[in-house]
C-alpha cells in the first residue's frame, strides 16, 4: 500500500487512551509519530508545554530526546542481551548506583526475580511482555505508548496482562496510549476510546459512550473531547503522512 494518508487530531489527559480500529487504520503510525520515529508532514505534537513537533515552527525533536516509553508489537527485546541488560539499557542517564536500585525495583514490580541472567529466548511470552514494560519504564518516561503489546499472547495470559497493566498505570501514574484492534480489550481497558478508520478518527469517547452511541454522534463526541481534559495533556493536530509500506 502506498499513498496512505493519516489525518488525525486528538488530545488526552492523564488517562489510558485506547486507539482502536482495523489493521492499517493508522494507529501504529500515530504512535510512531508521537515517539518521533517518523515525522508527520504537517501539524504539531505537544505534551503539556513541551513541543515535540511543529511543522510551522520547524521543530522536530528526535526520538532520543523525547521521553516516551514505547513497547513494540513484537516487543523488540534485544536477543543478545540478558533480561537485566535489556532493562538496564532503558536506564539512560542514571548512574551506576541509581540504575542498580532502579533495576531491583523493576525486577520486583514486574515479578522478574531469578530471570535476570536469562536471554529473551529463554523466557515465556508473558515474562517477555513484563521485561519490555520494565525496560520502557525504568527511566520513568512522561508517557507510555503500547503498540498491540498483547496480541501474541494466549487468552488467559492476555487477560492477566491487561489487569497487570492497569495496576502498573496506577502505580506509575502516567498517561498511557494503547493501540489495539481487539474491541473487548479496548472496552475493558480504556478511559477514552479513539476509534480509527482509514487514517481518520471516526469517534472518540469513554467506552460506554462509544458503545452505546456508535459513530452516529461522531461530531458531538469530537467537540466534547476538546475541553474535557486539563493537565497533563497531549495534543495532536491535523497531521497527515504519506507512508510507503
Amino acid at each position, binding site marked *: 500500500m502506498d499513498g496512505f494518508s493519516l489525518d488525525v487530531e486528538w488530545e488526552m489527559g492523564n488517562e489510558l487512551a485506547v486507539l482502536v480500529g482495523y489493521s492499517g487504520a493508522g494507529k501504529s503510525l500515530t504512535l510512531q509519530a508521537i515517539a518521533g520515529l517518523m515525522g508527520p508532514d504537517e501539524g504539531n505534537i505537544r505534551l503539556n508545554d513541551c513541543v515535540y513537533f511543529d511543522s510551522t515552527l520547524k521543530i522536530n525533536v528526535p526520538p*532520543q530526546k*523525547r521521553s516516551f516509553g514505547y513497547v513494540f508489537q513484537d516487543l523488540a527485546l534485544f536477543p543478545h542481551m540478558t533480561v537485566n541488560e535489556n532493562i538496564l539499557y532503558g536506564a539512560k542517564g542514571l548512574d551506576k548506583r541509581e540504575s542498580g536500585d532502579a533495576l531491583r525495583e523493576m525486577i520486583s514490580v514486574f515479578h522478574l526475580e531469578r530471570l535476570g541472567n536469562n536471554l529473551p529466548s529463554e523466557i515465556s511470552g508473558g515474562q517477555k511482555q513484563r521485561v519490555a514494560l520494565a525496560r520502557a519504564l525504568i527511566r520513568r518516561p512522561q508517557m507510555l505508548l503500547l503498540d498491540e503489546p498483547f496480541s501474541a499472547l494466549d487468552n488467559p495470559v492476555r487477560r492477566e496482562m491487561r489487569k497487570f497493566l492497569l495496576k502498573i498505570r496506577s502505580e506509575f501514574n502516567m498517561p498511557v496510549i494503547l493501540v489495539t484492534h481487539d474491541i473487548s480489550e479496548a472496552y475493558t481497558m480504556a478511559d477514552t476510546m479513539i476509534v480509527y478508520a482509514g487514517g481518520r478518527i471516526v469517534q472518540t469517547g469513554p467506552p460506554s459512550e462509544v458503545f452505546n452511541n456508535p459513530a452516529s454522534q461522531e461530531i458531538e463526541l469530537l467537540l466534547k473531547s476538546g475541553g474535557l481534559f486539563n493537565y497533563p495533556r497531549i495534543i495532536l493536530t491535523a497531521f497527515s503522512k504519506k507512508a510507503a509500506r
Partner: protein
Amino acid sequence: MENSILFSLRLSLQVAAVSTVFIVLVGIITAYVLARKDFRGKEVVDMLLTLPMVLPPTVTGFYLIMLLGRNGLLGRPFYELTGLSIMFTWYAAVIASFVVALPLMIKTSRAAMESVDKNFINASYTLGRSELETALKVILPLSKKGIIAGAVLSFARAMGEFGATLMLAGNLPGKTDTMPIAIYSTASSGEWSKANVMVILFTMLSGLFLYLSNKLGKRLI
C-alpha cells in the same frame, strides 16, 4: 625448510593480518554508512568500492600505481615531503590487499546490518540511546555473524592476493615476495620441488584457517 619459504610465509601472514585490521575498521564504518544513511551518490560510492572485486587485479594495481607511484596523485607529494616511496615495500602489499579485499568486508557487513530488524533500532532510540550507542550496542552485535564472515573472507583474500600486489609491491626476493608471488617465480624458474612444498603448505594453511574460522564462528554465534 628453506629460509626464503619461511620468509614468504611470514610476510603473507603479516600482510594479510595488517590489511585485515584496516579492512575491518574501514569496512564496518563504510558498511554502516551505506546501510543506514541516505545521501546522494550512495550507490556510486558502493559501486566504486566494489569494483576491485570484479576488475582484474592488474587493473586495480594499475590504478594504485597511478595513485601511489612516485609520480602518482598521492605518491608524488608524499615523496616530495618525506623522500620515501610506498612502491616496492611491504606496505604496498598491504595497500594492494586492502583495496582488493575490502569489498568482501563491505558487502557482507552491509547485508548483515541491513537485515537487523528496524524495531530493535527504533526501540534503542525510544530508550534514549544515541545513534552511536545504538550502532555499538545493538546494530554491531546483531550483525556479528556477517562481520566475522566478512573479516574471514577478507583475510583469506588478502593472503591470496597476487596481481595488484605484484604491480604495486613488485617481486623483490626477501622483501616483497609473498607466498603467491614466490610460488609464481619459483614455478616459472622451474624449481618444481620447492614450488611443490610451498603450494602444499599454502593449501594446508588456508584449509586450517577456514576450518578454525568456521569453528570459531559457530561458537560465537
